[in-house]
């Protein structure tokens, strides 16, 4: 019993310039014949928020956006961290930010998290927060704005869930909308 050879020596003049691959994509019919095992992963996780982000989430519950100041470099880190990765020292104090900012960048997404198509595009982006260093902030949705209006540099503000519905989650902010709308 023997099978067709699967590699070729490049230095053999019968073959073209490298590379000289052998395999191919199989047809759906051929794929259906392949011996295989299907297995379902059963991996459950509890992801810790950590000290800084736990306090940040508590802040969101109270309708506040909190940062952490490093006196070494003077930066206010948002999302907050208990250490400054640049100065490599503990950060020093909690700072409440006004919550407003500008659109740092955005996307008009016609696909959801599972790559399914959505009719109404999801407006998503990052917000450069007032009171934080340039480019610094977090990702969130945009609302009360059309895809055509949305632009980089647009001043925005958070729209909070009612206090009773807030649980200490990034989703306690519903979305950011153009400031003063």
């Amino acid at each position, binding site marked *: 019993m023997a099978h067709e050879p*699967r*590699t*070729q*020596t*490049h*230095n053999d003049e019968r073959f*073209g*310039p*490298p*590379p*000289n*691959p*052998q*395999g*191919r*994509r*199989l047809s759906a019919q*051929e794929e259906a014949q*392949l011996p*295989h095992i299907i*297995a379902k*992963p059963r991996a459950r*996780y509890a*992801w810790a*928020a950590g000290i800084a*982000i736990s306090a940040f*989430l508590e802040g969101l519950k109270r309708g506040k956006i909190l940062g952490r100041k490093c006196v070494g470099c003077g930066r206010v*880190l948002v*999302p907050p*961290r208990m250490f400054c*990765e640049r100065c490599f020292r503990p950060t020093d104090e909690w700072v409440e930010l006004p919550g407003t900012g500008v659109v*740092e*960048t*955005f*996307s*008009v*997404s*016609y*696909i*959801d*998290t*599972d*790559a399914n198509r959505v009719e109404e*595009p999801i407006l*998503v*982006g*990052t917000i450069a927060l007032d009171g934080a260093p*340039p*480019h*610094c*902030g*977090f*990702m*969130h*949705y945009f609302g009360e704005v059309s*895809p055509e209006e949305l632009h*980089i540099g647009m001043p925005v503000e958070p729209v909070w869930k009612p206090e009773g519905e807030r649980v200490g*989650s*990034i*989703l306690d902010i519903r979305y950011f909308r153009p400031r003063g709308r």
Partner: protein
Amino acid sequence: MIPKSDLRKPRRDVAVVGAGMTVFARRLQETGKEMAWEAAKQALDQAGLTLDDVDAVIVGTAPDAFDGVHKKGEWLLDGAGGSGKPFMRVFTGGGTAVMTPIVGWWHVASGLFDTVLVVNEEKMSSVRPHAQSAFAHIWDPILDRPLKPNLVWIFAMEMQRYMWTYNVRYEDIALVAVKNKRNAVGHPCAQLADPDITLEDVLNSEPLALPVRRLDISPPSDGAAAVVLTREEIAYELTDAPVFIEGVGWCIDTTMWTNRDLAFPKFVARAAKMAYDMAGIKDPRKEIDIAEPYDPFDYKELQHLEALGLAEPGEAAILTREGKTQRDGELPVCPSGGLLGVGNPIAATLGIKIGELYWQLSRQAGPRQVKKDARTGVAQAWGDLMQFSSVVVMRRR
């Protein structure tokens, strides 16, 4: 303070003497090991070496979650030829494609080993319904994932910021996808080669997360690639035209991606500076003849060319529009067809970055061979949470 030693001075010169790769496509039939072996065997055959000549083996492969096995490096071991030898796995996300040859380089340059086999493999078809399920876990579970993000978003946002900051037109970015998918026509491993693709095809392709459309993205894929590295004296015994690794560099930016300037990848520029300094390159625009920057998205090729010092920020799109980055242009870029044309089995793109530079610089690239007499080239890869880059400068002396 103790002065720093000249850390970047390698002890020995290291050359690439062989490369191999498999077809990039959905490969349900072969196991990852079998693909790794096919690529590794080709590379050794091309070098005229056997496994007995190999002193150590480096394997590169991305998250275990793709294949659904733990310790994927060890799992691939026998197909990569590492059984019974010094062996290590390297993983720096997409940057693995050019990082494993850097690790192979220091194994030889340091004097520890003479000949090293570098094998990268990726199988993205094992995880169902889609590799996206594994990708979802690169997002922060507390701050990002409750927003139900799609991986494409992060690239869409980066692309948007890049276009806005440097006033780059989408039409020019899309030309990169056209160029690379056409270049891939000459590549026997290509998954998405298309000789007839036009700019309109890209502009009218399905909107995913705007500004990103379907044809702006390289396809997920399965495949493997390998290169053989050896010290100078052995290289000259094996071939008249070894291609030397003259400089290497790598760098990583903060993981807090919402804190970064997304328009210009400084970490790529730092990795490039390290590699250029080692290679003695002072003016990359004059001294680099050919480039294989990482192009999982069309705009990434442009951003990377700029960070590699081959164009001013915002200028790469103009070079593309003027045809200068075509295979017969002043600076051929991704003559392999790149990830956009050949496919994107993450770590295995080694074959279209380092592999392609080796074949191009040793003038073995056949129908893909660039017109100019290219002697010095740069290859680059990029990955993790769009924060890591690896850069290699190669030269035929």
